[in-house]
């Protein structure tokens, strides 16, 4: 052992003692920054010194520990009991390693390996999230990430003035992989004119390595101001593997003064084609191998989807801010960019939403089972037919839909479908039928549940409504209005209350649940023919394409899919309108002036905007002050205080941070027409 080594052992002994001391204190104060920094520094010194003085075991052993404590130091990793106990064992082991012969001892060697493995485990856990990011697949298949670069390095003549030796850099670079170096000496002057302090040489280098161009550039960090450096990626594979290619490169380029990049690229392309032809057979084998492994779908944690949806919603909001900014500030340069982002965001939104869609099929099994069980219980013979099971709905909608559908089906089995004997008497097929059909209709999904049972007895409903004081005995109601009475809270037509449709949980609950997911329920029933319940749901819950409008500084959003046309109309015309009808395009259109209906204070504008929206099978106009434009609205609930406030389906936050209210035009028109 030479003197320097002895000195190092002395020093390392002190360092290890200090390390132990620091760790003991750290155990009591795991968050102490100074202690963590000290531990890191000691590891670092041990590693550096170990390498310097031939204690490679120490150097290697501390290398990973140093990395771990660097992460701790940068708050990326927490001190755990586990980590501390490993480090303590490491301290004991480091003392052993100060003996250069230590690893010849079997027990120490075993201990060494065990500890290395433990440390590696901590490291692995630490870097796990990153390791998930995989390299490009094609490269992986071949099992190599090697790429071939071409570098032109031309130092300034004065580069050696500050002590840099370009040869060191070239040497470092070549350590990265396989290389082919062409020093270019054409600038070297005649001996008589040569200044030995100047650098006349430039280099052209072919390098095949796993490193990135950035990492190569790093080698030249300290000289990049004093030289010209060009790094070009020639190929995504190692060009320098076969002798022929290397010889060809040498033949083509060695004798030249400078390599012409275009010529080089052409050369590589040619090579690439040759190479591909050669590899075709191999590739095909690989392809057939991968095909078996192609997976058409993957399982994703639904929390992750929720997270994705939230992020998309945030993105939509942020993008809206950008568009608004660009428009307000008239930043023409950004216009195109902003439009592109808008487009991409829209596509991303649609794709993200399609991810969270699941087919309604997923809940049908439960219904099959329910009908089977109930049929046995009530001694009824029922066939359950479904259509459009592949229709997809937002998963939260499916969750919200299951209960109401169960209830509807129970009702059908319990009250709708007659017993076999009764059906035969009525001349119906002995087997009853419940038919569930789902289909898309515009931006909605429609689910129809139809039975061929006895239907709802309107007289019974009416009688009950009178009994319960919902209507007066002399009320004149249409059949539809009578049916709608069933949705009144607390109304139940079941004369025999069974345990299937218990007291008080009737159609009103179904309606409430469907309302909660922004859907509508419609009921049709014909005596002895059957009952049909139609549920209409939005495709998704959280984002809608809307039309942004304004009344007296307050902004509103109308669902774009319901907007028909927009007309500028003199306020006068509305004032003079008879019976709330205005003639547009030769057609009489009923309208509601939202300014009045919403009791907005302030003067109406001379020229107002009439937005016609689709309502049932008609067009109805809604009058607003201004139409601002299309807007993707991220729907946020108004909160519990507004729970029964159904003309507004929610709010959305605009680019400038203010709130716009999202109008449910169907409900608004329904409410106003009812009132008028």
């Amino acid at each position, binding site marked *: 052992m030479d003197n320097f080594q002895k000195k190092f052992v002395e020093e390392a002994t002190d360092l290890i003692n200090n390390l132990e001391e620091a760790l003991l204190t750290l155990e009591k104060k795991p968050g102490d920054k100074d202690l963590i920094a000290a531990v890191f520094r000691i590891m670092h010194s041990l590693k*550096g010194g170990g390498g310097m003085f031939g204690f490679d075991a120490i150097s290697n052993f501390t290398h990973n520990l140093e990395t771990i404590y660097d992460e701790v130091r940068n708050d990326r990793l927490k001190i755990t009991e586990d980590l501390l106990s490993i480090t303590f064992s490491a301290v004991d082991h480091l003392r052993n390693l100060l003996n250069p012969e230590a690893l010849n001892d079997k027990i120490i060697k075993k201990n060494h390996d065990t500890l290395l493995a433990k440390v590696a485990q901590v490291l692995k856990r630490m870097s796990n999230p990153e390791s998930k990011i995989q390299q490009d697949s094609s490269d992986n298949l071949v099992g190599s990430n090697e790429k071939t670069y071409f570098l032109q390095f031309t130092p300034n003549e004065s580069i050696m003035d500050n002590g840099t*030796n370009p040869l060191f850099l070239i040497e470092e670079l070549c350590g990265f992989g396989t290389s082919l170096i062409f020093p270019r000496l054409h600038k070297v002057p005649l001996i008589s004119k040569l200044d030995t302090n100047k650098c006349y040489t430039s280099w052209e280098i072919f390098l095949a390595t796993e490193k990135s161009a950035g990492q190569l550039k790093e080698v030249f*960090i300290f000289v990049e101001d004093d030289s010209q450096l060009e790094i070009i990626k020639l190929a995504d594979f190692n060009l320098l593997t076969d002798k022929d290619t290397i010889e060809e490169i040498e033949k083509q380029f060695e004798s030249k003064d400078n390599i012409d990049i275009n010529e080089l690229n052409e050369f590589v392309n040619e090579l690439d084609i040759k190479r591909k032809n050669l590899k075709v057979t191999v590739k095909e084998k690989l392809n057939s191998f991968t095909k078996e492994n192609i997976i058409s779908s993957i399982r994703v944690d639904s929390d992750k989807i929720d997270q994705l949806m939230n992020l998309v919603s945030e993105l939509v909001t942020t993008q809206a801010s950008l568009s608004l900014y660009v428009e307000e500030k008239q930043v023409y340069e950004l216009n195109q960019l902003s439009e592109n982002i808008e487009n991409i965001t829209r596509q991303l939104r649609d794709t993200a939403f399609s991810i969270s869609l699941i087919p309604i099929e997923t809940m049908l099994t439960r219904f099959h089972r329910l009908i089977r069980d109930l049929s046995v219980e009530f001694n009824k013979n029922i066939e359950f037919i479904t259509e459009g099971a592949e229709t997809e709905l937002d998963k939260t909608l499916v969750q919200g839909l299951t209960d109401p559908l169960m209830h509807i089906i129970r009702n059908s089995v319990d009250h709708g479908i007659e017993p076999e004997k009764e059906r035969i008497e009525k001349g119906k097929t002995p087997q009853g039928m419940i038919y569930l059909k789902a289909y898309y209709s515009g931006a909605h999904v429609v689910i129809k549940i139809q039975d061929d049972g006895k239907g709802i007895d309107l007289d019974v409903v009416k009688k009950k409504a009178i009994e319960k004081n919902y209507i007066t005995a002399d009320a004149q109601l249409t059949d539809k209005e009578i049916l709608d009475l069933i949705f009144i809270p607390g109304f139940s037509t079941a004369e025999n209350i069974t345990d299937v449709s218990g007291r008080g949980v009737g159609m009103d609950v179904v309606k409430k649940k469907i309302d909660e997911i922004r859907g509508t329920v419609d009921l049709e029933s014909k005596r002895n023919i059957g009952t049909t319940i139609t549920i209409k749901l939005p495709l998704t819950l959280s984002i809608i394409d809307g039309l942004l409008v304004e009344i007296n500084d307050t902004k509103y959003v109308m669902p774009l899919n319901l907007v028909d046309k927009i007309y500028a109309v003199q306020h006068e015309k509305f004032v003079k309108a008879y019976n709330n009808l205005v003639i547009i395009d030769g057609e009489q259109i009923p309208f509601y002036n939202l300014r009045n209906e919403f009791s907005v204070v302030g003067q109406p504008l001379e020229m107002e905007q009439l937005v016609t929206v689709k309502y049932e099978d008609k067009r109805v106009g809604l009058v607003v002050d201004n139409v601002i434009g299309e807007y993707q609205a991220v729907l946020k609930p108004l909160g519990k205080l507004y729970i029964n406030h159904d003309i507004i389906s929610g709010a959305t936050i605009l680019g400038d941070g203010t709130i716009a209210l999202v109008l449910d035009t169907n409900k608004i028109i329904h409410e106003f027409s009812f009132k008028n």
Partner: protein
Amino acid sequence: MAKTVLIVDDSESIREVVSFTLENAGYNVIVAIDGQDAIKHFDGKIIDLLLTDLHMPNMNGIELIREVRKIEAYTRIPILFLTTESQRDKKMEAKDAGATGWIIKPFIPAKLLDAIVKVMR
């Protein structure tokens, strides 16, 4: 006249081996145990090269050279890092602070000397 090199390293053994190498090559060597200790030497005396470690207690190498570059007399002296660190961002930080070069530990004494000779020419 022999040139003066200031060696800064918290490890005594590194200081010794570097000093030994440089003294044998005819340099005048001053040593300091960390940045704080080193900065005291920049009091007007001639220092031809600063050779410093990166991670040190009290004042690290980067903090040290930032201080050194602030002193008029030493804005142009070569500064080399001698460290086991090889991260790009550390190198960039060092360069921005005013470092001339970077030597990675462990080093071969002859190579170290070679680099030092070149820097001080």
